């Protein structure tokens, strides 16, 4: 693998799928997974650019932080989903419609 384009295409693909999941899926857990895909796409981008273009450590550090924060965000997100499930007994996004004007 001496070209960075396959990696960039892969990350772009992941990004688009993540956005697609966020828009199309109605299951909240699936939507959280979509967020993970988007975050991982950008982490992959950072690593790719560091490997092929910029020979400094910034990108690696960035992607490590992204992994850590994605875990934290998933933890809080899941906790909120559990809370939501306990009050609404559903993890369907259409059931979250109490607050529309």
């Amino acid at each position, binding site marked *: 693998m001496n070209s960075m384009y396959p990696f960039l295409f892969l*990350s772009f693909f992941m*990004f688009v799928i*993540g*956005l697609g999941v*966020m828009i199309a899926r109605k299951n*909240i857990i699936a*939507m*959280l997974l*979509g*967020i993970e895909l*988007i*975050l991982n*796409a*950008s*982490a992959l*981008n*950072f690593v*790719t*650019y560091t490997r092929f*273009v*910029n020979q*400094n450590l*910034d*990108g690696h*550090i*960035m992607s490590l*932080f*992204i992994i850590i*924060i994605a875990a*934290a*965000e998933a933890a*809080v*997100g899941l*906790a*909120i*989903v559990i*809370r*939501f499930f306990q*009050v*609404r007994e559903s993890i369907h*996004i259409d059931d*979250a419609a*109490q*607050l*529309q*004007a």
Partner: protein
Amino acid sequence: MQMSYLAALGHYIPELIVCITMVGLLVLEATYSKDEHGRGLLYSGAMIGLFIAFCVSAGSLTDLPLPIFTNSVVIDPFSGFLKCIMILGTMGAIYLSSQSKDIYNNLKAEFVIMATGVLMGGMLLASANNMLILYLGIETLSILSYALASFRKTDERSSEAGLKYALYGGVSAGIMLFGMSHIFGVLGTIQFSEIGPVLNNLTATQLSILIPSFLMFFAGLGYKLACAPFHMWTPDVYEGSPLPVTAFFAIVPKMAALGALTRVTFVFFQEPGLLQESWVGIMQVIAALTMTVGNVGAIGQRSVKRMLAYSSIGHAGMMIMGVVVINEVGARAILFYGSTYLFMTLVAFLITSFVNDKYGNDHFERFNGFIYRYPMMAIAMALVMFSLAGVPPLSGFVAKFNILSAVVEKKYYMLALIGGLNSVVSLYYYLKIVRLMVFKESESSEKIEGLGFMNQAIVVALTVPVVLLGIFWSKLIVLAESAKILIQ
């Protein structure tokens, strides 16, 4: 010039104090969580810690600006000023939470701890000079905010608010990161100071990647700032969250994101060129849209809290107008606007909170005949409403005038016109409350327990700056003028 780590810490004292306060509060909460006495201790501890941080932050406003921690954080008067505003906002929200019944008693300690944590993230964001620090600041701010929004655990609306906040927040943070990764790929650095200079000689290919990347990058900031294309979550989250949390959201994350947006714009787009033109153009459209959406949305609302949520979107749009001009005058106007906005928002939310605690909702009709029952409070509320709408001689007018004059100076007449029209629109819904308070008969003559002598005194004390800043504005302007942004 590189500074040793310890010497750099010496310039980072306000953040350290906030951090230590948070850890101390955690220990206190673990030790005394059961009894009433412990809660009093917790509140006084939080207030003292934040007050010390405020004093240190305000005291170092005149220091020379400098970058610390290998240029990843900048300590300059601009961020110092924003930090003062954020600390005061947090103190106000914590006081509100101690009085409000909207937060369960056994969770009050947690509110204080998390609010301090959000404040820490906000302070980091306001002085971020590096994409990593910016991202860390935004996420510290966001992740704690998700938990804060779903604070009423058994309440459907609150957990829904938290859920929406978390989903929207996650996506926009992801989009921002994707943009950042391409900026890093093209320019080869995540340091703001190194990005600025290289932006001027780029090839067409690089530009074609960079422009969408900057737009994606803006998504994350714009989401925190609740500006037009990313504002959908704001009314829902603000309405579902408990009232002290809403007051907190309306001030701290907003000011922090505004600080970051200002720094990014000033550092990246100082030099004229294609990128600057497109950024300024997009920001103008966004400012105009944000104002219009906020003010038009506020008109039809029944709930005062939701109205205040929409109006905060409108004010965010107004403050973005100060970013668009990219000069010192704009930065000064933003700081002035922020400090008046702080007091106005706090008073409005304090009074709404007491009414909400009494009646269980905060519909406009609850304010009927308020002036005959609590004249002082009604006058304070009326003053704040006039000030939010921008009626002279109150401070809101001076703030809006500053922003508009900065915009006119740059010859963005269309934008200034939209800003002026929006002020007129906002008069309608702000004056609606005043009209109800004065001209309607009161539904009941029951007392509102929350409005004791102490709370009335605090509301009045917070209203005084709203009036005084409108008359003696020159003092604050001078202070804000010295608060320059360090571009390095």
